[in-house]
């Protein structure tokens, strides 16, 4: 005979204590199963190459703050310090004209580059053709998740480029950084890659992105 009961609900009338011995027995069984699982598992190490943390504006170099202040007037800025194998950098993140800008400086406040999040479809046809060829030859399936325009050059040229004062392409160098989710031939799962493209649509480098574990979010 099938009785009806909702899963997870406690019928208070039915409650009968197992007693301390019964409870201990099941706890012991549970711990034993966990220990057995531990002893048979394979170990996989992941090495995080970068670490960033928020800092106060006052902790950023004066030169960096001055550049951000005069380029991005009256804009809310968040400051970060990034640690990598190459040392430390300082980053300012903000929104400018509806786009996310990330301005990277060395620890003395010297400008390294500016990254602007853009729509992939907005890239010019030459670059898109180069990227599409590379991706379709490299991956069986792929999806471009993020596109960033990377600008390098001297501070005044970059400032003018941001403020749309000049369009001197010889002073400002453009590259594109893509985050691509792709599956190559022989791969068992899709993987995330960071691909740097030059202004002619050629790949400069490709890095595999190691994602942090997600067990605590899905179990």
């Amino acid at each position, binding site marked *: 005979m099938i009785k009806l009961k909702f899963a997870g609900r406690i019928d208070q009338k039915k409650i009968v204590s197992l007693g301390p011995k019964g409870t201990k027995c099941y706890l012991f069984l549970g711990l034993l199963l966990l220990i057995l699982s531990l002893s048979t598992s*394979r170990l996989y190490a992941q090495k995080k190459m970068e*670490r960033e943390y928020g800092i106060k504006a006052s902790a950023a170099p004066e030169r960096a703050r001055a550049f951000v202040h005069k380029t991005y007037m009256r804009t809310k800025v968040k400051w970060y310090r990034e640690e990598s194998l190459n040392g430390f950098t300082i980053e300012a993140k903000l929104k400018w004209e509806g786009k996310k800008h990330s301005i990277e400086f060395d620890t003395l406040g010297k400008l390294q580059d500016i990254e602007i999040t853009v729509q992939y479809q907005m890239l010019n046809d030459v670059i898109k053709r180069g990227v599409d060829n590379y991706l379709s030859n490299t991956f069986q399936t792929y999806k471009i998740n993020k596109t960033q325009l990377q600008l390098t050059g001297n501070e005044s040229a970059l400032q003018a480029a941001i403020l749309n004062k000049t369009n001197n392409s010889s002073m400002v160098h453009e590259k594109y950084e893509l985050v691509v989710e792709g599956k190559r031939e022989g791969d068992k799962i899709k993987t995330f890659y960071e691909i740097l493209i030059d202004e002619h649509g050629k790949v400069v480098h490709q890095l595999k992105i190691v*994602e942090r574990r997600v067990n605590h979010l899905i179990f």
Partner: protein
Amino acid sequence: MKRTYLFTLVLLFSLLFSFGQDRYQFGVIPQINNGFAFGDEYELNSKLEVRQLLKDGPENIAAGKGFHFERTDIETVLNRKLSPLDGIAVGYLFRVEEGQIIHRFIQQYSFIRKKGGFRLAHRFRTDQTLDDGDFSFRFRYRFGIEKPLAGLEIDPKEFYLKFNNEYLPTYSERSFDIEIRALASLGYNLSDKMKFETGLDYRAEDIVSKDTEHQCWLNIGWFHSF
């Protein structure tokens, strides 16, 4: 938008508290959660969870029973990754609840998306429960947000916040009901492989019937990845 949100909240709470003398439970849920990776493709997640009931009403049965674990769960889920952030999974849960043994079979699809400094987790789960001849089926949807408290990524030795909201419609042979859960946790990421979390888990069970039970649990979790 803000008004709609407030109206929804008021409506939800009105529904929750309009059923006369509701039942309630307070207690603690410690949890040990281990993830074992088998290559890039597979991952086995095992969870040991116990429930310590501290107070309940209106009868306060827990008071007469002293310290004991009212429920013990051992759950194992095998996850087949589609990417580092997406996966399909099947699992089994073995539960001992006040002397009764309960079996539950689990199927799951989950995916995570990144938005600025947030990670948004979506989990769709179906499960079938066998409890001494009783059978019930649930469709569960859980939405989770994780937010680092320093920077844009959760790095070692950093704190983070986690919020979960889950809806659990339950179907049994002649009845239908729904449970809603909301969890707010503070986490500490000791290393890339180990996390501790603690927070409050509110659950409203049997919302459709006139016998709603409100539960509030203090969750304490240890998450480890191998």
